[in-house]
Structures are given as structure tokens and as C-alpha cells.
């Protein structure tokens, strides 16, 4: 026995796992068959679909707007820099839960949202026209801003503030010589950013973005406060309180979130491998699936085992 400590650890862990499995199997509160029945019911699957749609759309808004904000933050124009700073300041300061409720109630400010000439009524009054209106189109704010869109905007706009910082760090991690060499070849600043700087920045941007995506998956449950009901956790809790089987539904939620996170981790692995081209002598990705799974707390037993 070369590693006696290791064997002791294995024995201790073995006993703990056995106790845990015993608990899972024997404790009636888990009610496994009920849980499995309920977790694939149409309203729950619908809720899962809603959560994933929220995740995808809010992350798209977050990443897109985040890149724009990061570029503004790094520009030479002090006004753009200031606007980007103020945006980041606001959306990082306000808790997501508060933002979600706030966006759900924006309908109080405007009954309708309309696009057209700003201050048209005041301008009309200036020229002696009563109730002058120059509006191109509009829609009811109560319809649009309650529900899915409000939740998506609250999460996406908040995410953009965090993504802006991540993208900025990524851009700044690229050696300035890269920009110079590209400019010397005759690339414009936009071309330098798109072809040379951002692809290299991705190596720094992708891992924290993976974290953000997983955090966002969990934060989609906040939209219940908008309120939005086509959302995974809301649906599972509804089943739980209707049937007085709260605990099995909490376990079902845990399992769903674990599953989706695992899928996201696999995606992250391939993205990282793609963007680490040319890094290091071997020119190959150095990160491994195992490494990522361990970094995230090793919760993905299935993935880590491959």
C-alpha cells in the first residue's frame, strides 16, 4: 500500500455515498415515481422551454450589447466612454430581482410605447396646433412589457453590464503589437477589431461567459416576479403546492438545472477548443472536459466520466 491516506479517504467517501443512496432509496419524502411522472408533464416541459428561450435571448442581448459597451468604454470619445460607464454602473448596482419587478411594472409609466418625433405635442403647441401628433407606430406597453419581453429585457440589459467588463478585459488582454501590425498592413480600426483583436480576445472571454450563462440559467427563475409563468421553476413549484408534494418537485428542479448546465458545459468545451487555436507550442487546446467540470464544482458526473 503506497498511499494509505488515499485508501482511508476512499473508505470514508464510500460509506458516505452508501448512506446517501440509502437515504434516496428509502426516504418516502422523495416519492420518486411521482416525481418522474410530474417532471415530464406538458406544463413543466413548456416551462423548461420558456426558461431556455429566456436564457438564449437574454444572453444574446447581453453579449451583443456587452461588446458594444466594451468598445464604447475603450474608445477615445469621452462621451461614449461616459455613457458606457454610467450604464455599467447602473445595471451592476441594482439587483436582478429588483430589475425584473421594475421592468414588469414599467407599464405604469407608459400605457403605450410609440415611435415618432420626440416632444411632438410640445412642438405642436409652439406652433399653435392643438394636440399635434407625429407618431409612426406604437403598441400597448401593458401587453408587451408584461411577461416574457419584460423578463428578457431585465435579464439581458443587466447581463450586458457584466459582459461589457468581460469583453473589455478580453480586448485589453491582446498585445498592442497586434493592432499595430494590422494597422500597418492597412486594416481600418473596425477590421482590426473584427479580424485580429476579438478572435484573440475570445480565449479570455469564453470561460467567464460560460459562468455567466450558467448563472443566467438559474436567474431565469426570477422572472416569476414579472410575473411570467412559463418558466421551469414556477411550473414545478406550482405542481408541488397543488399536490402537497413540495420536496420531490424541488429535486426535479435540481435535476433539470443539472442537466441543462451539463449541456452548456459541453458547448463551452468546444468553444474554448475552437478559440485556443495557435495558443501554446502544440497549437491545441490545453483545457479538458474534466478540467472544466472540476472548475465548476464537479457536479457533472456524467460528463466528467467520458
Amino acid at each position: 500500500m503506497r498511499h494509505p491516506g488515499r485508501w482511508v479517504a476512499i473508505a470514508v467517501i464510500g460509506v458516505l455515498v452508501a448512506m446517501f443512496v440509502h437515504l434516496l432509496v428509502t426516504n418516502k419524502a422523495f416519492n420518486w415515481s411521482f416525481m418522474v411522472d410530474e417532471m415530464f408533464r406538458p406544463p413543466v416541459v413548456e416551462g423548461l422551454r420558456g426558461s431556455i428561450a429566456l436564457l438564449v435571448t437574454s444572453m444574446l442581448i447581453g453579449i451583443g450589447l456587452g461588446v458594444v459597451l466594451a468598445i464604447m468604454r475603450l474608445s477615445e470619445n469621452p462621451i461614449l466612454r461616459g455613457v458606457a460607464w454610467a450604464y455599467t454602473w447602473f445595471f451592476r448596482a441594482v439587483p436582478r430581482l429588483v430589475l425584473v419587478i421594475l421592468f414588469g411594472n414599467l407599464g405604469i409609466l407608459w400605457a403605450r410605447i410609440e415611435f415618432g418625433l420626440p416632444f411632438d405635442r410640445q412642438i405642436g403647441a409652439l406652433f399653435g396646433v392643438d394636440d399635434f401628433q407625429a407618431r409612426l407606430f406604437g403598441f400597448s406597453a401593458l401587453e408587451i412589457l408584461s411577461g416574457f419581453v419584460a423578463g428578457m429585457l431585465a435579464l439581458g440589459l443587466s447581463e450586458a453590464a457584466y459582459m461589457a467588463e468581460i469583453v473589455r478585459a478580453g480586448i485589453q488582454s491582446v498585445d498592442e503589437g497586434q493592432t499595430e501590425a494590422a494597422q500597418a498592413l492597412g486594416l481600418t480600426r473596425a477590421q482590426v477589431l473584427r479580424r485580429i483583436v476579438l478572435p484573440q480576445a475570445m480565449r479570455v472571454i469564453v470561460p467567464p461567459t460560460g459562468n455567466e450563462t450558467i448563472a443566467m440559467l438559474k436567474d431565469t427563475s426570477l422572472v416569476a416576479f414579472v410575473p411570467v409563468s412559463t418558466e421551469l421553476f414556477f411550473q414545478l413549484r406550482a405542481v408541488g403546492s397543488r399536490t402537497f408534494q413540495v420536496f420531490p418537485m424541488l429535486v426535479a428542479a435540481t435535476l433539470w438545472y443539472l442537466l441543462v448546465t451539463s449541456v452548456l458545459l459541453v458547448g463551452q468545451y468546444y468553444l474554448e477548443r475552437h478559440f485556443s487555436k495557435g495558443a501554446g507550442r502544440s497549437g491545441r487546446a490545453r483545457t479538458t472536459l474534466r478540467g472544466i467540470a472540476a472548475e465548476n464544482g464537479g457536479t457533472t458526473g456524467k460528463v466528467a466520466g467520458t
Partner: protein
Amino acid sequence: MTELTVSASPDGTAAVSGPMVRAEQVHKSFGSIEVLKGIDMKVRAGEVCCLLGPSGSGKSTFLRCINHLEKINAGRIWVDGDLIGYRERGGKLHEMREKDVAAQRRAIGMVFQRFNLFPHMTVLQNVVEAPVLLRRVKKAEARDRAAQLLERVGLGDKLGAYPGQLSGGQQQRVAIARALAMRPKLMLFDEPTSALDPELVGEVLDVMKDLARDGMTMIVVTHEIGFAREVGDHLVFMDGGVVVEQGDPREVIANPRHDRTRAFLAKVL
């Protein structure tokens, strides 16, 4: 034999077409520190001009002014008759738009001390990128020419390698090929061999000599006195932001007229 196209005319016609580079009273300051204090210089087409001087004398800064990587505070620079970075209208200078500055840079190749290859692209992609993006050359055509250029600098077998897998000397030769792919009329070299192990310096200098023989106009900042003597047509010695002495390289190196030149040469020779 692969052929290397160089748009500069050979020595004979150079006098007719005017200088490739002309600098007049170029001033440049960083904050309150004046780094260039009125540089005048002429480089004829097809000529190799070596720029020597102690550290901090402003050699790199001047080189970077020629392709407008640095904005000058006063004076003028022309490359092949075009005023760099500014447009003259009614006796006044107007700053060029970014797009036009970028267009001017396409005719001027630059090679850096630290190579600055794009690490996320293969050797071939490094060379192909700019011509395809900027000169609207067809991909296949650009690839053929890139392969020729890389063959020419002795890297025909490294097309698929990433820069991180190459030695310093190999990387610098790729950087030269990358600049040549834009078919420049002028090449700027900023201490191209200073970051290399001594045994790798020769392979890069050989490529540069080859280029000079082909009639490329070159401005080379270097501490390689041997190169200046052998290949240089003109030598400019700078110190403290001014041109101290210039002339035929062999002449200046053998009989420096200025004390500062003498002191500098004594140190590097």
C-alpha cells in the same frame, strides 16, 4: 525560381521619378517631451537607407511617423509623392479620415522587432489575410502568391504551422512575407534582428539582402553595422531627435565626422 514582384523602379530611373520618401522638418512630441526635433530626409526609390543611433534617439518614432502610426506635430512626410496623413487644401493641412490613412498604409510594409504575427492564424493565413481583405484578391490567387513568397523566404514547408510553433528567425521571415504580400513600394524595418538569438540573425538578414538586390526601397533601423556597410546605399545617424550625420555608409563608418557618431560607432563595432 519564384519571382518576387517589387513595384519600385531599379536605380537607373529613380532620379527621374523623385524620392520615394521625403521628410521635411518633422517634429514629434509625447506630452512635453520633444522626441523628433526637425528631421529632414530623402530616400530614393530602390535605395536601402540604414538608420542608426543610440537608444531613445527617436529612430522607431520616426519610422512610425512614416506610416502614420504616430501623428506628427509639425513638418511633412511624402511617400512616392503623396503627403502622409494629411490633405493640403488652400495652404492648410487637414487630417485625413481613418479610411484614407489605412489606404495609404497599404503601400508601406512594416516589420517589427517583436514580429507581431497573428497567433490565431496559420503562417499561410497570416500572409493571405490582408491581401484578401484589402486588395480584393481572389482567395486562390492570394494563396498561390503567399505560398510563393513563403517559399522565397525559405518557409515553403511551414504553411500550416502556427506562429507559436516557429523559431524567432522563422517568425520574422513570415512577417516579411506578410508585408510583401501587399506589394508595398516601401518597406520599413524596425530592428528586425534585435530580438533574435545570434545564430538566427543571418537568415533574416539574408532575406533582406535578397529584397534589396531586387530593388525594394527600404528604411532599416539596425545595429548591424555589417549589414549597413554591405547592403546600405545611405546611412543616417540620429541622436537626441536630430540627424547628426548622413552619407555613404562605408564612408561614414570609416571616417565619422561627428564626435557623437564616432562615440556610438566605437560602442557597437
